């Protein structure tokens, strides 16, 4: 097995995405050397609130308070994936017993993070959230920082990409991309693209929830394959690239109504075939 050190960037200590990725990596025999957790400070709240507005409050309520209860039961989602894979760890602190060091920082670009990364010679950083990573960190991140992006690159850069795929009637473009981060926005070398079929989801929330288990599994698979030399990063083509932004409430409602219509039409078609 490859001897590279694995360092994980984490958005909050109880991030289900982070703990699931880490636990699955442990189950595959990897040891996680360091988990670097971004503290939730007032400054962070203010910055994120100015970007996301009310959405941030909902996100905080769901991710920090409701946690697994935020997901509807019986649907494809991270809690169901966790229970199917018998993943028990709920907080990064629990990884201490496996020898993992935990570091708390104000931002992932702090000097202390840079110094921590410099402690390891041969390393790979796994990004599971926590904000934009600056050049000072990317320069000392060894092989690089792997990120799971919620769209198919290079076409879909930016935010709210599942929503944009549906708005543009390009549901065949729904998916995720595992890539190395660089100083641009979603422009780094690509490791793997995973297309996700639309199935019968009637609202964007359930569709988004269904992405999460695939993101966790793909991240672990890609780290595993990369460390064992089974995949090589490929440079992104710069043509046909587009940056998308947060979808306005009115278009967001339109996404849901488009999904409902698709499902209704699909159901009607299936009934006709049955008769």
């Amino acid at each position: 097995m490859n001897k590279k050190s694995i360092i994980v960037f984490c958005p909050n200590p109880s991030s289900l995405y982070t703990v699931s990725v880490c636990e699955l990596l442990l189950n595959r025999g990897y040891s996680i050397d360091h988990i670097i957790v971004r503290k939730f400070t007032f400054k962070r709240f203010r910055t994120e609130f100015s970007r996301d507005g009310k959405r941030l409050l909902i996100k905080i309520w769901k991710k920090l308070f409701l946690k697994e209860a935020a997901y509807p039961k019986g649907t494809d989602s991270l809690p169901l994936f966790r229970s199917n894979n018998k993943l028990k760890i709920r907080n990064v602190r629990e990884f201490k017993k496996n020898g993992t060091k935990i570091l708390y920082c104000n931002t992932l670009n702090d000097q202390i993070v840079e110094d921590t990364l410099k402690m390891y010679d041969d390393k790979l950083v796994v990004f599971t959230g926590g904000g934009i990573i600056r050049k000072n960190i990317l320069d000392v991140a060894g092989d690089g920082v792997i990120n799971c992006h919620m769209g198919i690159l290079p076409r879909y850069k930016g935010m709210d990409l599942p929503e944009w795929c549906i708005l543009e009637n390009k549901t065949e473009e729904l998916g995720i991309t595992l890539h190395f981060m660089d100083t641009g926005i979603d422009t780094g070398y690509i490791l793997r693209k995973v297309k996700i079929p639309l199935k019968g989801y009637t609202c964007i929330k359930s569709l988004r929830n269904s992405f999460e288990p695939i993101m966790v599994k793909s991240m672990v698979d890609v780290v595993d394959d990369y460390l064992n030399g089974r995949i090589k990063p490929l440079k992104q083509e710069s043509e046909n690239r587009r940056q998308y932004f947060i979808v306005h409430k009115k278009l967001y409602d339109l996404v849901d109504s488009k999904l409902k219509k698709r499902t209704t039409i699909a159901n009607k078609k299936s009934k006709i075939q049955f008769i």
Partner: protein
Amino acid sequence: MFATMKLQNILENKKSFAISDEYPFLNNKYIQGLEVEDAQIINNISAELILNDLGEYPKFKNLTFKDIIDLRILVHFEVANSIVYDWLEKILRYCEINYVNLKNNEKKYARTREDSIKLFNQIIALFVEYYLLENDLLFLNTALKITDIKWIVPTSSSSLSTKALRVIKVNQIHEIIRTLENE
């Protein structure tokens, strides 16, 4: 070529076009703040001339509502070439990335309140018109976001054409959304 022919046609029929429904945005009630200058615009209108004038995209702080009107004219005549598209993308990116700081930035740029109102309402109009030309929802999305900003709603002291443009474009957005919902 097509756009030039269209322009030629307009220039030959200046009088009728000022009140024509075919080119509604050029009717001066749509071109806010240009009541005095609209005749001049009509006389000098030429896609090539506007394109030459546009040149390289300046910083947003140097942008004026007249630049946006130039872009609207080009979009209206379907001259959506790389220069126009470049400008549009840069304005879109600026509005999206600086969305929460737009008001503060306007103060920094030392534009008067009325100039900011004119500029942003012209941007709304430009984005809606570009959406109608290219069906590019990203522009409609940003137009929707800008309409949500309270401080760019025309005030009682704003010109009638500014108020008219605002009402027309907001209604147009609602109409587009209704159409999209029924698709």
